């Protein structure tokens, strides 16, 4: 790939990302106007109407929409999303404090998904008649139809309550890393606490990924080029793990990347069930308290994560797929 192609790709994706973030900011802003009256949160009931109006004027709440929105946007670009009503601190800081917890949970779930779905997808595609395949496929059908909070609650009941093997809530011990990143990956207790939540979170996507990889691989195994590879006298291993697998994983990367992005949304449920101190748990609390700045900050941060992962996935897809040219890979 040429450098010029690469720069033009980044520019295109950059512009797309900006458009998406712009839309997300609009949504965030309109929530601000619709979720309760900020004055009531700030001053309570005992203030007179005249005083309220003066305060509204001072806060710019009586300005035209466009003026208010550009002020919101201007502040947002500088990282100022307002103060959390509850924590009395900048909302963005509150959210970002919880980012490592959520990131590590999603990362662990992603590793579980990749680590299981790739070998299982390959195995079930190569051995369609094996009894292991029948079991994997049956379990994955059941898995697709069970909601994540049920999985989570069952897991807690069995492994924490009945067997007592696993902690049922929290992150356990964490280690403070540079930039205020507290990691649970580096302590045994932290890893122990990570097991159930990450398995529960991965269980949402795992069946889907196994079926995706299996379906894709079976189709590739029927292709003319795989037939030709057999006719060339290549070994099974080479045909399966080089010829077929490469062509299987390329489409899986682009589809799977988007799905992994949506895991972020499912962390709200998982974190709440396991009281995992991450952004999702925080978000649900913020909703309960109608902590509007925090809600908005969450939406914008998650939107940003989504945009960044999608761009990364696209970039990887383009790098590994020789038949796609950078320019014009567009959407």
């Amino acid at each position, binding site marked *: 790939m040429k450098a010029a192609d690469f720069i033009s790709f980044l520019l295109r994706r950059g512009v797309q990302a900006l458009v998406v973030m712009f839309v997300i900011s609009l949504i965030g802003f309109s929530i601000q106007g619709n979720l309760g009256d900020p004055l009531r949160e700030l001053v309570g009931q005992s203030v007179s109407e005249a005083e309220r109006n003066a305060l509204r004027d001072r806060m710019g709440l009586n300005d035209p929409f466009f003026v208010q929105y550009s002020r919101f946007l201007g502040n947002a670009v500088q990282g100022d999303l307002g103060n959390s009503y509850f924590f009395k601190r900048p909302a963005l800081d509150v959210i970002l404090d919880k980012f490592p917890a959520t990131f590590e949970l999603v990362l662990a779930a992603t590793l579980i998904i990749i680590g299981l779905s790739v070998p299982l997808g390959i195995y079930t595609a190569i051995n369609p008649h094996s009894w292991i395949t029948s079991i994997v496929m049956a379990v994955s059908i059941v898995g697709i139809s069970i909601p994540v909070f049920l999985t989570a609650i069952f897991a807690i009941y069995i492994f924490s309550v009945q067997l007592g093997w696993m902690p049922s809530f929290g992150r356990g011990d964490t280690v403070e890393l540079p930039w205020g990143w507290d990691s649970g990956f580096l302590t045994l207790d932290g890893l122990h606490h990570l097991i159930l939540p990450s398995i529960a979170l991965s269980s949402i996507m795992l069946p889907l990924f196994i079926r995706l990889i299996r379906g894709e691989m079976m189709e590739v195994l029927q292709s003319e080029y795989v037939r030709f590879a057999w006719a060339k006298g290549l070994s*099974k291993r080479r045909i399966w793990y080089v010829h077929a697998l490469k*062509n299987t994983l390329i489409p899986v990367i682009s589809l799977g990347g988007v799905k992994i992005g949506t895991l972020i949304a499912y962390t709200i449920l998982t974190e709440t069930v396991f009281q995992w101190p991450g952004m999702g748990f925080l978000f649900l609390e913020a909703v309960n308290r109608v902590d509007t700045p925090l809600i908005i900050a969450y939406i914008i941060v998650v939107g940003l994560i989504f945009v960044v992962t999608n761009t990364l996935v696209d970039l990887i897809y383009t790098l590994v797929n020789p038949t796609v040219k950078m320019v014009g890979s567009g959407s």
Partner: protein
Amino acid sequence: MALLEIEDLEVEFPNRHGTLTALRGINFTLDESERLGIVGESGAGKSMAAFAILNLISEPGRISKGRIVFEGRDLAKLDEEEIRAIRGDRISMIFQDPMMTLNPVLTVGVQMIETLKAHRDISDEDARKLALARLREVQIPSPEARLDAYPHELSGGLRQRVVIAIALLSDPAIIIADEPTTALDVTIQAEVLALLLALCRDHATALILITHDLAVVSQITERIIVMYAGSIVEAGATRQIIDTPQHPYTIGLIAALPEQNAPGQPLNQIRGSMPSLNNIPPGCAFAPRCDYATDICHRIVPNLTTAHGQSVACHHAGQLQPQESVRDTERAVS
């Protein structure tokens, strides 16, 4: 002894309703450096026969009967590793559509070198050298650059040349080419065929050329097999088949050649269409479309019988009047 002897080959596909016999009673031989053509309408079982030779019938199909004797061994009875060693080394294949044959995510060089490495201990460097030499042989311009190219960067004609180069890598005893030019642009079909012919001559490689185009085989092969609905209906020297076709199906194929028909006139097609394999009529499979069919044709399957080196499966073989313009045919196809 012949290089390849196929005896009473039968291929079956078990399915819900029972068993579908895709090939039955296939008998033929191929001598060293001989060029043999297999013709017949689409669906006749030509590709099936080709894949059966290398035991490459896809599941659930299987070779249910017969022997495929190559260099003294029955290929149908070899274990996985033994047949793998023959594929692409002693017997190579060229597929129909070069747009689909090459793996889109591997470079030409990788796809050539892996073939060599699958069959012998060879250094990367030597393998690359040999691959380059083969690309030169198939007359690919700037072969060094092509080695690092992906298939989608090459035209259809160039891709088929790459496929031919791959087939040629190990200097095989037999190349099986399954409609090697059907998917190509008309303007380059002749070029690729001429190249294939020249290479087989230079390397003394035997060729099985599969096509639905009688005109093509008549220019290249020494012998012809005509297939219909999974069976051989006629076989013999190319000249014999073209000059004195015995089976009504072969006669019909020749009459349908564009050269046989006056410009502007509709082509002289054989009426009707080939029966599907699960619906083959009793008796001669061709009888429902045959102008000469009599009572016996609809009841009894004709055997392949040989006279003067020409085999025909027809109850009325030798009794049919030669067609009006057999001599025109000769002019047209040569």
